Each structure stands twice: as structure tokens, then as C-alpha cells.
């Protein structure tokens, strides 16, 4: 049975695309046939983060409009087997995506034996974001430890549980909280919401905490999903997220200042 997972947040720039790329690459590395779809029509970026920008010929909207087949548009990753990327269109037409079109693409992916279909949502609560979440079975809600991001996550959770297809049919979308850009030092210093605070407020299960890390920028510079950087804390934290998603019981890492070797050294040494 294939599963559709939306990576969403409401607020922009919190790490949806970074997380979608890492998560999809992680699932594929575990042997699952995975497709990651960029729903950010007009602002295509997943291709860059995944390092496949020069291989884009056709896009999601071309497939929906029958201008290309899904096979032609899907980009097969060269680093990880089982990983496929469907880029967004750069059209400025806001109505380029529609439920019938999106559904037909998702159904075709399911028929093709994809285990996971990861939908990278655009920011906001408008059409693109709605299209990305409408067919979701599960949702990864990306949240930064910051007031507006937490509030927007709460809003998007409300929309997920009222307007998605699963919700319309009386079910519930399985929710996962993914906290990104976390700084344990600042939490300890009292000027950043802690992961416990965020969980208290949103009350959905936590799937992981990704630390603020310079390696994310390095990964995007080079077009490699950060999960492939096995040395980096962010990469390792994403690896843990994938493991938890697949049912493993993995303790949280990089959430306490002590663990960050070198911090006190930086300060005093």
C-alpha cells in the first residue's frame, strides 16, 4: 500500500523543501520506492535542493495537461536508487493545479508501485498548499521554534483535519511534528521556545528535532539532500526522523547544549 505524505507548515521558509528532500532521500535509501513532488508552482526549488535542476525537461503541470507522460517528467535520482523527483512548473498560472489532475498523477504513482509519495507544499494556505495536502494520508508539519511558525502550524493542522480528502471522508490525517532550526543553547538561554513548549501548544506527536546547522546551507549549495551528509548533525537528525517514521524507537539527539561539543570551548577556550 502506498502512502501519501505532505510536508507542510503554513509559514514560509521554515524548512519544508529541505525536509522533503531529506525525508524522501532517506526513505529511498531504506529501500522504499519514493517519489517527491514539488507543489510550489511558480517557485520551483526542490530540483535545486536535490541537485537535479539541469535534468528538468517536463514538469508536474505538463503531466497534468497531458503534454508529457509521468515517466517523461519523473527524474530518477543518480545517487539513491528508488528515488524520483517530479519538479514543479514555473508557470505563473495559479490554477495550473487542480484536484482531478493531481489525483490522476498520484494514482498513477501508486499504480507504478511507489511506496511513498512525498508532497513538498508551498507556503501559505492557498491553492498550492491545499493541493499538496488534499490527498495526504499523513502530514509532517514543519515548525520553527518561533511564535508565528507555531501559530501557522496550528492553522494548517486545522485545515488538514477539515479539508483534506481523508477528513472529508470522516477519517483523520496522521500528524507528525517536525521541529527544525532548533538551537538548544538558545532554548536554555530562555529566548527560544523549547520542543516541549511547542508540543504542549500543538499537541501532536513529535517525529524529530533538526538543529540549526550550517551543513543545511552547504548541502543546498552542492545540491545534495542534507541527509546524505552523514557527518552533520542535521543529516543525522533527519536519518532518525526517517527511522521513527518507519516505526523504530530512536531517542532524540542534538537537543541538549551539552551534546554540542565545542560550545563551551568556543565560549571559554
Amino acid at each position, binding site marked *: 500500500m502506498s502512502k501519501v505524505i505532505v510536508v507542510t507548515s503554513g509559514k514560509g521558509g521554515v524548512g519544508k523543501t529541505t525536509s522533503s528532500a531529506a525525508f524522501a532521500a532517506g526513505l529511498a535509501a531504506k529501500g522504499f520506492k519514493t517519489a517527491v513532488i514539488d507543489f510550489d508552482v511558480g517557485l520551483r526549488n526542490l530540483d535545486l535542493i536535490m541537485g537535479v535542476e539541469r535534468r528538468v525537461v517536463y514538469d508536474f503541470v505538463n503531466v497534468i495537461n497531458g503534454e508529457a507522460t509521468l515517466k517523461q517528467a519523473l527524474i530518477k535520482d543518480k545517487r539513491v536508487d528508488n528515488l524520483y523527483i517530479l519538479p514543479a512548473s514555473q508557470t505563473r498560472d495559479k490554477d495550473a493545479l487542480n484536484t482531478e489532475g493531481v489525483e490522476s498523477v498520484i494514482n498513477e504513482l501508486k499504480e507504478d508501485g511507489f511506496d511513498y509519495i512525498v508532497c513538498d507544499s508551498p507556503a501559505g494556505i492557498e491553492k498550492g498548499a491545499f493541493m499538496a495536502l488534499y490527498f495526504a494520508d499523513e502530514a509532517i508539519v514543519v515548525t520553527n521554534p518561533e*511564535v508565528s511558525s507555531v*501559530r501557522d502550524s*496550528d*492553522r494548517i493542522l486545522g485545515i488538514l483535519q477539515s479539508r483534506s480528502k481523508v477528513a472529508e471522508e470522516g477519517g483523520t490525517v496522521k500528524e507528525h511534528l517536525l521541529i527544525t532550526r532548533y538551537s538548544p543553547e538558545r532554548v536554555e538561554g*530562555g*529566548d*527560544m*521556545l523549547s520542543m516541549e*513548549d511547542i508540543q*504542549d501548544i500543538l499537541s501532536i506527536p513529535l517525529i524529530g528535532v533538526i538543529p540549526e546547522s550550517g551543513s543545511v546551507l552547504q548541502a543546498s549549495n552542492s545540491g545534495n539532500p542534507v541527509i546524505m551528509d552523514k557527518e552533520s548533525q542535521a543529516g543525522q537528525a533527519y536519518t532518525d526522523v526517517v527511522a521513527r517514521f518507519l516505526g523504530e524507537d530512536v531517542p532524540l539527539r542534538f537537543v541538549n547544549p551539552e551534546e554540542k561539543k565545542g560550545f563551551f570551548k568556543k565560549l571559554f577556550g
Partner: protein
Amino acid sequence: MGLFSFFKKEKKKNTASLAKERLQILIAHEHSDTSSKAPEYLPKLQEELMVVIRKYVKVNDDAVNVKVEKGDNFDTLELNITLPESK
């Protein structure tokens, strides 16, 4: 990092708990807004009711309370008018 920056840090210490408190209040409020799903005509209805009621009794703005209760099979519109104390 001198003494000055140390004090500056101390002073800011609890902005995170302030953030949490504000978020909890705000989100509780936003949830009660959507979960009761009050029909859009409610404020207007309340306004017009006031006009009618005031034809007969002198009441304050907060004396009339209109709310919609969700039931299994039907919703009910509850109207509460607190009359002024009769002397």
C-alpha cells in the same frame, strides 16, 4: 563577553515563556472560534434583536446573548435576555 552583555542576557531571559503563554491564549481563542462554527448572520441577528427588545425594555448591550449549540441531529439557537431588575 563582558559584564554588560551578561546583564543584557539576564534581562531577556523569559521571552520564551512569554511566547508560550501568548500562543496558548491565542490558539485557544482561535480554536473556540472555529469549533463553535457560529453562523455568519449571528452578529447581525443580535444587533437587530437588540433594536426590537429595546422597544419594550431598557437593556444593556451585554444583556442579550445569542449562541448556537451543535446537536447530533439539529442545532439550536439559544437566546438569553437578562431583564433589568424590577423595582
